C-alpha cells in the first residue's frame, strides 16, 4: 500500500498504482460496511477534525462516519461563512489546531489552494474535502469506485462529465483520476462553462449534449450553481435544462447499460430530470453516497499509516 504524500490535497499528481490501491482498500471497506462490522480500532486515540469553511452536509457527515467507524475521535468545526472567511482566519485556525494536536484534518474551503496553504502550517495530515474550483479528491475516488463496481474497470470506458465544468472541483478531480486510469473522458457544457484550454487536460470537449453522450458508458452530471445564472454565464434555468439537462431523450444516445451519476445536491429540473435521477437501474446516485464513506475510510487509513506512532 503506497501513498506518495503525507496529505491528500489533489488527485493530480497521483500515479495509477496509488489510485488503484486506494480503490482496492475502499472496496474492502465497502464490503465490511455492508457486513455491519463497523467499529475498528485503527484510528483509536487519533483526532480527526472536520474543518468546514463552506456549508456541506453530506461530505462532512461522510468523513465523520468514516472517522468514527475507524475509531477516531471526530470533531466538527464549522467556521461561519457569514463572518469573514479570509485566510487570516485560516492561518489563525491552523495554529489553534496544532495546539490541539490534531492528527487528521479534513478541510473544505471556498478558495482554491486553501488546503495546500494550511498543509504548510499544520503538523496534521491534511485531506482536501473540496477547495474552491480546484479539486475534490475523495469525490473522484468514490465516483471511480462506483463506476468500477458497475463496469468492472475504468480503462477504456467513455465517461461524459456534463454541465458547469469551469466552476467544478468535482469535474477537475474526476478528469485527473479518470484520464490517469485510462478512461476516455469527455466534457460537455455550454462554452461559457468550459474552462480555458480544457482540452489540454486530456479530454474531448463537446458543446452539443447529444454528441457528447453518444456511446457513453457513464454520464456524470454536475450541479449548476444558481449564481451562474445571475452572473450571466447561462441565460436561464429553463434554457439550460433544454440544452444541457439530462432527460430520457438525451440519455437515449448513451449506451443502453450506461449509468448516471451526480455528486449532489441535485437541482431537479435544472441539470437532471427527476425520472432519470430516480431511475431504478440507470441511476447510481445512492450508491455514490455509500461508496463515499468507504473511500474516506480508505484515505484515512492510508494517511494514518504515515502518522508518527506517538505524538
Amino acid at each position, binding site marked *: 500500500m503506497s501513498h506518495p504524500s503525507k496529505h491528500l490535497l489533489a488527485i493530480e499528481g497521483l500515479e495509477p498504482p496509488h489510485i488503484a490501491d486506494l480503490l482496492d482498500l475502499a472496496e474492502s471497506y465497502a464490503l465490511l460496511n455492508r457486513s455491519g462490522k463497523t467499529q475498528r480500532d485503527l484510528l483509536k486515540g487519533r483526532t480527526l477534525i472536520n474543518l468546514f469553511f463552506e456549508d456541506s452536509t453530506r461530505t462532512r457527515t461522510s468523513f465523520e462516519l468514516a472517522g468514527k467507524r475507524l475509531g477516531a475521535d471526530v470533531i466538527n468545526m464549522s467556521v461561519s461563512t457569514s463572518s469573514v472567511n*479570509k*485566510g*487570516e482566519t*485560516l492561518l489563525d485556525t491552523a495554529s489553534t489546531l496544532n495546539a490541539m494536536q490534531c492528527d487528521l484534518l479534513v478541510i473544505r474551503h471556498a478558495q482554491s*489552494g486553501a488546503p*495546500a*496553504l494550511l498543509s504548510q502550517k499544520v503538523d496534521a495530515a491534511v485531506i482536501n474535502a473540496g477547495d474552491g474550483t480546484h479539486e475534490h479528491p475523495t469525490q473522484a475516488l468514490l465516483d471511480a469506485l462506483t463506476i468500477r463496481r458497475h463496469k468492472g474497470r475504468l480503462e477504456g470506458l467513455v465517461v461524459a462529465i456534463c454541465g458547469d465544468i469551469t466552476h467544478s472541483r468535482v469535474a477537475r478531480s474526476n478528469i485527473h483520476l479518470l484520464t490517469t486510469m485510462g478512461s476516455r473522458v469527455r466534457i460537455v457544457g455550454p462554452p461559457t462553462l468550459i*474552462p*480555458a484550454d480544457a482540452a*489540454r487536460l486530456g479530454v474531448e470537449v463537446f458543446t452539443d449534449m447529444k454528441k457528447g453522450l453518444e456511446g457513453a458508458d457513464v454520464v456524470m452530471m454536475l450541479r449548476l450553481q444558481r449564481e451562474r445564472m445571475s452572473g450571466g454565464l447561462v441565460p436561464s434555468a429553463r434554457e439550460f435544462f433544454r440544452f444541457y439537462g439530462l432527460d430520457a431523450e438525451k440519455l437515449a444516445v448513451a449506451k443502453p447499460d450506461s449509468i448516471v451519476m451526480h455528486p449532489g445536491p441535485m437541482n431537479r429540473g435544472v441539470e437532471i430530470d427527476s425520472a432519470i435521477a430516480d431511475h431504478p437501474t440507470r441511476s447510481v446516485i445512492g450508491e455514490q453516497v455509500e461508496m463515499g464513506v468507504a473511500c474516506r475510510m480508505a484515505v484515512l487509513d492510508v494517511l494514518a499509516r504515515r502518522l508518527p506512532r506517538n505524538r
Partner: protein
Amino acid sequence: MRDLLITGARLLDPATGLDGPGDLLVRDGAIADLGPGLAAPEGAEVVDAGGACLAPGLVDMRAHLGEPGAEHRETIASAAAAAAAGGITTLCVLPDTDPAIDDPALLSFMFRRGEATGSVTLLPYGAATVGCAGKELAELGLLHEAGAIAFTDGAHAIGNARTMRLALSYARAFGAFIVQHPEDPTLAAGGAATEGELATRLGLPGIPPAAEAMMVARDIALARLTGGHVHFAHVSTGAALDLIRAAKAEGLLVTADTAPPYFDLNETAIGDYRTYAKLSPPLRTEADRQAVVAALADGTIDAIASDHQPRDADDKRLPFAQAEAGGAGLATLLGVTLARVHGGDLSMNQALAMLTCRPAALLGLACGRLARGAPADLLMFHPQRGWKVEAGKLPGKAQNSPFDGRALEGRVLGTWKAGRRVFGA
C-alpha cells in the same frame, strides 16, 4: 564638498554608446569631466573602481510606495534605502495612495518627503482622475504646475473610454502624457492568474491575455483621435506589443515600459499557489515572455521599470485568489535586467538605456547620462558578481520578491546621488 575622482572604471554611457575604460570627476554634485587618465585635483577624494562598471544612476519610472496610507508596507525612507541599494537615483512614484495624489498640496508633501531622504530624487505622478477613481479629471494643470511628471491612476486602469479621451486630450495643453495600466477592468474582474491551462488546473479565476491587448488597441485609437501621448505600463503580452510597435511605426505618441518579472518569469512561477508571484498584470505564458524580450531588443519597449509594489505578510499569506497582487522590485531591477545581457538578448548599453537615458528623455529629465554638467547620479556595479535574492534579507521593508530564491549576476557596489555616496562602503 570635496571633489570626487573615480578611477579605473569601465565607463558606460548608454546615451552616447560610450563603453570603455576611464575615470570620472565629480565637482559640486555634477559630472565635471570623464575620460581616460584624469588627474586628481588637489584634495579630491579618489575611489578606485578596480575595473567595475560606472554608469548613470538608474531612473525607475514606476514604483508604488506605501506612503501615504500604507506605511506598514513601505515608507518613502525605507523605499529610498532599497532604491540606493539597487542603484536607483531617480524614483517616479505612483499616485494611487491613500489619499491619492490628486491635489497640489499632496504633491508638495511627496517632494518634501523625497528631499528628506537625501539619497533619491523622488518624482511623483499626479492622479489622472480624482481619487484615481476613473471618473472626473483631476486638476491636471495645477498638478503639472506643482511638478507632477505625468498623470496616471496607477494600478487602476482608466476603464471609461470618454474619461481616457478627455485625459489624453486635456493633458496635451501641458505637454504631459497619460500612463495607462493596460487591462480591461471588466474582462479582468475577479481574475487571479492568466487564463489558460495552468489557471484551469489550479482552479483559479483567469484573466484573458486579450484584456491587455484590447485596452492597448482602444487607447491607441484614442491617441490617434486626440493627438495625445499615451504610455503603457508593464506591458506583458506579445499581442499588445505588436499593437504598440505598429502605432509607433505610424508615428503616434505611444510609448511603453515593462518590468523584470515579465521578461524573466512566466506563469509557472505561481507553481503551487505561490502568492509572491501573484502580480498585476499576472505572469504570462512563455511565448509572451519571449515576446517581451524581443520587444526589449527591437526598441518597442522604451523603459524597464521596477513596478515595485510593497506587500506585507498579511497581504500575501492567504489563499492565492485572496492574496494581494504585487511584487517588490527595487533591489532586483538591475540584476534581473542584466540577466538578459548575460543571456545575449541585449547589449550592456542597450539594457542600461532602458534603465537610464530613455526613461529620462521620456520624462524630460537631465539625469540618466554620463555627460559633463549632468547631475553626478552614479551607479558602480560588477556585472558578473553573483548574489541570491532572499525574501527577508532584501533592503527596505518590502520583502515580497517574485524572484525569491533566484541567483543573479550583477551586484551594485556603490551609488552616488549628486556626488554624495548613498550606498556602498
